[in-house]
């Protein structure tokens, strides 16, 4: 098994906003190995979220290549990209993006259900994962009845429940206070150090950067450090 989980080679991405081209990625090269905890840092518009999105197959590069767990994303159809995300990648979003009509446990089990895991197995796995993020008692609550920190923990539980190869987190602390952020980062550190999970975050929060093993700084779509 290769240690390389993510490889980005010469990735470029240009957005045409109001007919004015914006260079979001300008020839980015990046390697992320198994067990890494990488923080993509930089000011707004530096390209960190775009880089995270192309790694996650949510956006496509104009040139260059992206591979995740030895699978090249170039040329994959939308459905194939969906299948790859489902099988290999866990996502944590800035705004949690939980399904408001599902309970915490159902939100966590949702990915497993998409994967076709049996009901009994996914229920057990969802409970274990919620317990791992410290929310065993809140499994029957709807997202609307939970705090921002609790919702983000449910989002992390959802992202890791299926044991993905890679966990991508886009500004995971943006809507959290510092105390909650600390708890969240301790959880990510635990997942990385104790569970061996590979994590890539995009953030401009110094606290998040401090917890990462490796910081990658971007400016104007290029890696500067």
């Amino acid at each position, binding site marked *: 098994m290769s240690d390389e989980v993510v490889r980005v080679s010469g990735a470029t991405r240009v957005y045409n906003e109001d007919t004015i081209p914006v260079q979001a990625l300008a020839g980015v090269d990046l390697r992320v190995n198994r067990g890494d905890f990488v923080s993509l840092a930089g000011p707004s518009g530096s390209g960190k979220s775009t880089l995270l*999105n192309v790694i*996650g197959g*949510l*956006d496509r590069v104009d040139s260059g290549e992206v591979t995740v767990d030895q699978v090249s994303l170039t040329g994959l159809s*939308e*459905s194939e990209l*969906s*299948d790859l*995300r*489902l*099988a290999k*990648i866990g*996502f944590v*979003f800035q*705004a949690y*993006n939980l*399904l*408001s*009509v*599902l309970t915490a446990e*159902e939100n966590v089990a*949702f*990915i497993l*259900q*998409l*994967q*076709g895991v049996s009901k009994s197995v996914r229920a057990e796995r969802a409970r274990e994962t919620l317990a791992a993020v410290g929310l065993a008692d809140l499994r029957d609550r709807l997202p609307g009845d939970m705090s921002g920190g609790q919702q983000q923990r449910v989002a992390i539980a*959802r*992202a890791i429940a299926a044991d993905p190869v890679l966990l991508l987190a886009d500004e995971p602390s943006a809507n959290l206070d510092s105390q909650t952020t600390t708890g969240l980062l301790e959880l990510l550190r635990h997942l990385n150090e104790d569970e061996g999970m590979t994590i890539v975050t995009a953030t401009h929060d110094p606290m998040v950067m401090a917890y990462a093993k490796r910081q990658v700084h971007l400016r104007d779509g290029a890696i500067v450090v």
Partner: protein
Amino acid sequence: MALPIALIAQLSLRNIVRHRRRNLMLLVAIAVAVFTVLIINTLIRGMQADMQELVVSNLNGHFKVHAPGYRDDPSIERGFKLAVDWAPANPSAIEGWAARVRIPAVILSERETRGVQFVGIDPAQESISFLGTAEIDGSLLSSADDRRLLIGKEMAAQLETRVGRRLVIMTQGADGLNREAGFRIVGTYDTDGTTIEKQFVFTGRNALQKMVGAHVVTEVSVRVDDDGAHRTIGEGLAAFFADLEVKTWQQLEPLTASYVLFADSAIFIYYFIVMTALIFGLVNTLVTSVMERVRELGMLRAVGMRPGTVVAQVVFESTFIMMIGVALGLAAGWLVFQALPTDIDMTSWVEGADKFGIPNIVRLRLQIGDIVLVTFLSILFGVLASLYPARKAVSISPVEAMRR
């Protein structure tokens, strides 16, 4: 990968409940549309069936046999001999049949004179015609030998006569000479249409044959009981009466046949008008609903739900709402259909319509085929209406969707 049906159903049902007020309004709109279509259908089907029944029972039957040229020149010379023991083949598929002598005649009372169709019948065979259900003042003819008259109530009024009085009938005999005879009125009949009452005067078949001097009949009407046997019976009659004409009721009354066919189209047209109006509302509501959830749908795709599965979820939601609405509409329609009187008197709405062969009394009819049609098309419309917003939802990239 197979569609995660259980997951789609779970999310769809929860979303329907989440937007319960909007979906309730949508359900009511669908139910009202289906209910309206169903009730109008029962009315149109009732009028359609009643018009057909009127024509069939108007001495036509489903098939009628007569000599070539009789329809243009309905005289006794166009009569034909019918074996005494003749009966149609396949009796289990036949409701009944009647052999008649029908010739033009002039009827005279002390005060008035009228031209009529003088019909010699065997009353035992006339359960297949309107005489089987007409209200009779006095009594029916007793047999084919009965030499009395049964006239229409309207005719009696025009001739200013009544049961028990005598009338004179003039017609042409088989020898071409005029025949004239006096008859006593045994009864008057009352039907839905006054035209019929003014048109037909009945006596015993044998009595009329004796009067015109020819032991022939001019027509045989056959009424079919089994709808699936029409073709076989028609072919059987045509083969047996090879030298005669065998006409269907549609050939004898093409105007009514056209109306009956048009009624089928009218149901479709009406249904499409109502459902098209509904579809606009449905699409509008679904687009609003989907656009409100575009961020959520983007997230579903981001975490690995295929675009096709997202489309399936939106389609499932709208189809489910459609199915519930259709079920409610059908249930309401069925309850109202059960509560309404069997016969609806339309006299005050369509006064004089009977002169055109449209019955004053409409019997509502609910056909299983119409229920199946309404259900199937409604669900089909629901699926089609939801495809546009569903496709629109997945046309937005997950990243763009989650930014909204």
